[in-house]
């Protein structure tokens, strides 16, 4: 069974530039999550989707971050404009339903210079 796929794996951009991350969850998983992980810390939830509906986006900085999950499958997370403090690893995860174990992708390491 294929795991969660994320791209790109690495991204280096200058501050104020836009950036987008893509995630393809495990087939059949209804719930999709985006997390942010800083070095030496555990992941922190940014947004949770149940099918195509964003049901928890309270931790998403909406002035610069946006996300979408069209057709309830793939998802895209966008930052515009990026700031130096956005440098981190962005993880996507999926689960069969909310509350079940989550399976993570390899992450996208973002460096903002």
């Amino acid at each position, binding site marked *: 069974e294929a795991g*969660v796929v994320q791209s790109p794996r690495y991204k280096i951009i200058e501050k104020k530039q836009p950036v987008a991350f893509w995630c393809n969850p495990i087939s059949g998983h209804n719930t999709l*999550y985006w997390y942010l992980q800083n070095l*030496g*810390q*555990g*992941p*922190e*939830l940014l947004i*949770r989707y149940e099918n195509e509906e964003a049901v*928890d986006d309270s931790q998403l900085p909406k002035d610069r971050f946006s996300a979408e999950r069209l057709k309830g499958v793939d998802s895209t997370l966008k930052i515009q404009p990026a700031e130096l403090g956005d440098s981190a690893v962005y*993880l996507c*995860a999926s689960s069969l339903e*909310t*509350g079940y*174990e*989550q*399976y*993570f*992708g*390899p*992450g996208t390491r973002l460096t903002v210079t």
Partner: protein
Amino acid sequence: EDQVTQSPEALRLQEGESSSLNCSYTVSGLRGLFWYRQDPGKGPEFLFTLYSAGEEKEKERLKATLTKKESFLHITAPKPEDSATYLCAGNGGRRALTFGSGTRLQVQP
């Protein structure tokens, strides 16, 4: 506010030297306590879910246990390939995982 605290932050063991990692949690309406393993440059890998106090689960050299306030990850006779960061997370009322900062385990041959 949900909180998960892991200790120690880092642990160095000799191969074969058993030990335990601690996860203390304050999670409202706990719906599950999760353990993950994370290798450098990779996403967390699911290990266990525990749902109620007294529950135990095992996988190879790892055993996870749960009380009303803590969870322990016991590592028996570890090998160098067990070296990784182990993350604990609680699933609470928000139905989202609250992670601890992890324990970095290094097992020396």
